[in-house]
């Protein structure tokens, strides 16, 4: 026990909760265990959402059409992470990016690897690198990361108005 006057106090906040995915998100999550990325298309807006929702967030139509998406996409924005993160044992700096999958109208957020962080750019084409089939789980972690697939960059103006 120290005799020094106290100046700081540990005061952790902890929240323990049960997350229940619901029917639509469950289908999305189970898709990863099978090596699939599943979205849904709005019958009115014709937009494809991934992760899928039961109803279109714009027009509220029931989105009853499931769409399997490509495992390739385009980086629409990214951030360079310089702070270590307890639950993620990755060498810093690393890059997390929004990836607009081919065929989707909104982007997903994932890790970019196999390229120096300072060479990553908006418009870069990437592909998913999957966990081995026997280690896949019903969750996005079954995609380990995205990496450049050497296709030419996409003109950023093409997806300027995407919900990306």
């Amino acid at each position, binding site marked *: *026990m120290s005799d020094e*006057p*106290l*100046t*700081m*106090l*540990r*005061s*952790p*906040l*902890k*929240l*323990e*909760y*049960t*997350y*229940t*995915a*619901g*029917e639509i*998100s*469950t*289908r999305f*999550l*189970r898709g990863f265990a099978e090596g699939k990325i599943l979205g849904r298309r709005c019958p009115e807006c014709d937009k494809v959402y991934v992760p899928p929702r039961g109803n279109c967030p714009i027009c509220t139509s029931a989105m009853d059409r499931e769409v399997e998406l490509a495992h390739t996409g385009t980086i629409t924005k990214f951030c360079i992470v310089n702070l*270590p*993160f*307890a*639950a993620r044992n990755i060498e810093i700096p690393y890059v997390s990016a929004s990836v607009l999958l081919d065929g989707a109208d909104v982007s997903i957020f994932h890790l970019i690897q196999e390229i120096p962080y300072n060479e990553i750019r908006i418009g870069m084409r990437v592909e998913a690198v999957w966990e081995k089939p026997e280690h896949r*789980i*019903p*969750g996005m972690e079954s995609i380990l990361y995205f990496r450049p697939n050497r296709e030419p960059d996409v003109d950023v103006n093409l997806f300027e108005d995407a919900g990306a």
Partner: protein
Amino acid sequence: MQTLVSFDFMSDASPSTQPEVLSAQHVLEYPYKRSLGPVIGRFFTSLREGRIEGVRTAAGRVIVPPTEYDPETSEPLSEFVEVGTSGVVTSWAWVTNPRPNHPLQRPFAWVLIKLDGADTAMLHAVDAGSESGMATGMRVRVRWAAEREGGIKDIECFEAEGS
């Protein structure tokens, strides 16, 4: 600052009724530290040493736990006063089912206690066994924690005098 998020692998929530829906236990934790400042820092330091200290205002009132500024004049306060480790319950609420982060893991009372020598009441817990053991106006005394690190949990709880 590190943020810790972890979760178990998703599993079927209730196979008998909803075989399709996944469910998982999640934990979100922020390991905050806060700086105490000169007044609460001294208050917690005194708890670690087994004393309870308040602060005297310009009007002569003793505030426990101490505040940094006089609630009437807004002037900074610095005259620390040791108060008693016993006092009177001025208000209470019985907790039948304690939550995991409550000070006691058996039924207890949240209480406002006006310690001897203090002019304000302090929030803490009383270990009374049952609700019938609680009454406004009852006298209680501190039960110190076995190990004190400097913090309000250095007081494990209060208990009825004579118990």
